[in-house]
C-alpha cells in the first residue's frame, strides 16, 4: 500500500485496516461489518471531511479529502463515504449545514434533472444514485427559473427504488414528486450540474485508481505464490508482461486522478483546466478499470472468478464506478466537442496548459 503522509489518510487507513479487511467483509454475508465501520469513520469525522467546522464538519482540505478517497478505493470501501463527503461538500457550497448520518448526492448522472417549482418544491427522477437506500439525507442540485439551487432533502420524502450496480452496491432510482426540502439556497456562481459531475467524477476516478493499486498488489502477490507447470507463474514471461501492463494501467489511472484532484484543489473555480483534467481522468480511469481489471482476473485464473475470493471486490466495483457522474463515453463526447469547438490549433495549447 502507498504510504500516506497526511493525518486524514493515516486515520482512515487505520480504520480501514481494522474494520474493513476485504477478506473478513467478503466472508460476512450479513453485512454486520457495516455499522461498526461507519461508526468509526463518523467518530473520526471523515464522512464530513469537506465540511467546514462551523457547518458541522471537520474542515479538511480538498487535497486531503481526495487522498482519503484514493485510500478508500484501495480498500474498495462499500459504505457511502465518498457519497457523504460529496454531499457535505455540495451543501457547504451554499453554506448549508450537514446533518449527521449517511448522505448521497443527486443527480448522479449528467442527464438527469431536478427542478424547483414556483412554490419551492422539488421534482425529478435520478437514476443510478449510489447508496440512496442507505442515505438519511440527499444533497442535491436543482434547476430553478432563476438559476441553480442547492438543497438538503429528507430521504424519507422521496420514492427510492432499489437497484444494484455491477459491483453489488446499491445504485438506486430516486424520484422526487413535489418534495419540500429541509433547506434550499442559491448555488454560488459557477457551481452548476457540470461542476458537480466533474467533482463526482474525480472522486470516482480516485477510487478506481485505488482499486487498481490493490488489484496490482494482490495480483503480484498471487503470481509469486501460485505454482503451475512446476514454476511460480510470476516466472512466466507472458504473465510478467501482463502484470507490467497492469502496472501501467494502475499508474496511468493514479496519475490522471491525482492530477485532476490537484487541479480542483488548486483552482479558484471549475474552469477549463479543471474540465480537461476531470473529464480526462474519468475517461482514462474507466478505461484502466476495464483493461487492468481484465488482467488481474487473467492472472488469478479461475480462483479470481469465485465469490469467495476478494478480487471481485475491487474489479467489479472499479467497473461499476465507471458509470457514476457520467460514463467515460459521455465525457469523451463532451470533451471531444469542447476540443472541436476550440479548433485544431488550440488543442496542443490546451493540453500543454496543464
Amino acid at each position, binding site marked *: *500500500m*502507498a*504510504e500516506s503522509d497526511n493525518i486524514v489518510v493515516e486515520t482512515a487507513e487505520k480504520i480501514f485496516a481494522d474494520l474493513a479487511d476485504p477478506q473478513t467483509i467478503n466472508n460476512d454475508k450479513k453485512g454486520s461489518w457495516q455499522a461498526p465501520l461507519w461508526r468509526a469513520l463518523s467518530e473520526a469525522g471523515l464522512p464530513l471531511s469537506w465540511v467546514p467546522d462551523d457547518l458541522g464538519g471537520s474542515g479538511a482540505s480538498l487535497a486531503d479529502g481526495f487522498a482519503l478517497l484514493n485510500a478508500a478505493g484501495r480498500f474498495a470501501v462499500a459504505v457511502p463515504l465518498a457519497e457523504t463527503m460529496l454531499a457535505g461538500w455540495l451543501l457547504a457550497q451554499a453554506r448549508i449545514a450537514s446533518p449527521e448520518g449517511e448522505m448521497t448526492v443527486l443527480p448522479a448522472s449528467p442527464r438527469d434533472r431536478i427542478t424547483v417549482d414556483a412554490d419551492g418544491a422539488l421534482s425529478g427522477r435520478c437514476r443510478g444514485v449510489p447508496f440512496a437506500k442507505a442515505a438519511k439525507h440527499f444533497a442535491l442540485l436543482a434547476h430553478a427559473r432563476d438559476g441553480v439551487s442547492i438543497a438538503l432533502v429528507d430521504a424519507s420524502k422521496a420514492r427510492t427504488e432499489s437497484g444494484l450496480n455491477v459491483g453489488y452496491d446499491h445504485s438506486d432510482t430516486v424520484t422526487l414528486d413535489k418534495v419540500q426540502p429541509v433547506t434550499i439556497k442559491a448555488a454560488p456562481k459557477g457551481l452548476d450540474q457540470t461542476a458537480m459531475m466533474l467533482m463526482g467524477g474525480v472522486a470516482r476516478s480516485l477510487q478506481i485508481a485505488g482499486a487498481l*493499486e490493490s488489484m*496490482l*498488489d494482490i495480483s*503480484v502477490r498471487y*503470481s*509469486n505464490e501460485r505454482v503451475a507447470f512446476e514454476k511460480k507463474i*510470476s*516466472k512466466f*514471461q507472458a*504473465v*510478467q*508482461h501482463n*502484470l*507490467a*501492463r497492469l*502496472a*501501467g494501467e*494502475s*499508474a*496511468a489511472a*493514479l*496519475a*490522471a486522478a*491525482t*492530477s485532476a*484532484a*490537484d*487541479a480542483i484543489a488548486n483552482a479558484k473555480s471549475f474552469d477549463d483546466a479543471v474540465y*480537461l*483534467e476531470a*473529464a*480526462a*481522468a474519468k*475517461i*482514462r480511469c474507466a*478505461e484502466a478499470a476495464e483493461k487492468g481489471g481484465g488482467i488481474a482476473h487473467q492472472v488469478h485464473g479461475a480462483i479470481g472468478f469465485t465469490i469467495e475470493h476478494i478480487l471481485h471486490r475491487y474489479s467489479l466495483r472499479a467497473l461499476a464506478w465507471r458509470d457514476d457522474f457520467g460514463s*467515460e*463515453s459521455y*465525457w*469523451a*463526447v*463532451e*470533451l*471531444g*466537442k469542447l*476540443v*472541436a*469547438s476550440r*479548433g*485544431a*490549433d488550440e*488543442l*496542443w495549447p490546451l*493540453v*500543454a496548459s*496543464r
Partner: protein
Amino acid sequence: MTAALRFDPIRLPEKCEQLRKEVRAFLAEEIAAGTFDPHKPNREDTDVPEFSRKVGARGWLGMTWPKKYGGQERSFLERYVVTEEMRVANAPTRRFFVADRQSGPVLLKYAPEHIKMDILPRICRGEICFAIGMSEPNSGSDLFAAKTRATKTDGGYLINGTKIWTSSAHIADYMIAIFRTSPPTKENRRHGLTQFLVKMKQPGIKVNPIGQITGQYEFNEVVFTDFFVPDDHVLGEVDGAWKQATSELAYERSGPERFLETYYVLTELVRAVGPDPDTRSAEGIGRLVAQLHTMRRMSVSVAGMLQAGKEPVVEASIVKDIGTVWEQQLPHRVRDLAAFVEETATNRETLERQLDFAIKTAPKLTIQGGTTEVLRGIIARGLGLR
C-alpha cells in the same frame, strides 16, 4: 510496492510558460520564413543545419548544463517545454536532438575535462550531431550481447565490428558507443562493455544507409575496421558501461518525444471534423485527448523526478511503454474516425497524406529506444517478479 509507482502531479513552473511562448514565437517565425513545413512530417530532409544553429543561438541546447560548457544552467523542466514544442511543430531537430538529450549528459558525467571543454560548447551552439552506437546485428535490444571489440593497443583501442540501426550516423560528427573490452563473466553477463567517444568521418569507419519502410533514410549500419580510439576517449569505467547505459535510458524513454511522434494526425483530424463534430467523432477525439493528457501528466511527472535527481527507471519504462503503444495506435484510431470526414474538409488531403506517413511510421515506435518486451521486463523486475 505500488508506492514506487506514484506519479505526482508536478506542474511546470511559471517561467516555463514564458519560455513556451518564446519557443512558439520562434517556431512560428521559422515556419513563416520557410525553414520547415509543420504539415510535412515526412519531409525529405529533416537535417537542417541552420535551424540547429538558430536553436543553439537561442540558448535552447544544453539548457541544463553548466555555463562553463556553454549551457544555461536552466531546469530539466524548461528543457522539457522546448522539446515538446519542437516535437508538436514537427521541427527538424534531427541534427541536435540526440546530443542534447543523451550524449551531452553522458559526456558531462564521464568525459575528461578537455573533451568536455571542446565538445559541449559546440553542441550548445547547434554545430555538431551525435549518434548512439548500442545495437549490433543479432543483438538489438539485448545490449549485453554486443560483440564489437575494442582491443587495447598503444595509446588507445582498435575497434572492429558493426553497429546497426544507428540513427543519424550518416550526418553525425561523433558517436557514443559501447564496445566489448572483455568477455562477459560467468557471474555477470553484463560485464566487459565499455563506453567510448568515437569521432566519425575518419578512416576505418564506413557508414551504410538502411532504407526504412517510410521511404526515409534515418538509420545506418556502421562498420569499424581497425578504427583507432585514443585512451582519453574512454567514457567512465572500463568494462562497466552497463551501469552507465541503463541510467542514461531514463532520459531516452520518458520524454515528450515518446508519445508525440504521430501527434500531428490528431490535430489534422480535429481540423477536418470542424467545430461541430458528430457523436462518433467527438467521442473518439475525446478519448484520444484524455489518453494524451494522461500520458503527458505522467511524462511531466518523470521529468520532475529527473529534475529532483532521482533515477526513475521503472517509471520511465512505464511512460515509454504506454506512450509508444499509444502513438502507434493513434494513426489507426484517427483513420477509423477519418472515414467519416466530409469530402469537402479543407485539410482532407493533408490529413490523408499525414495518415499515410504515420501509418508507415507506427511499426517502429514500440521498437526504438527499447522494445516493448524489454521495457515490460524492466517493469516486471521493478514489481519484484524477476
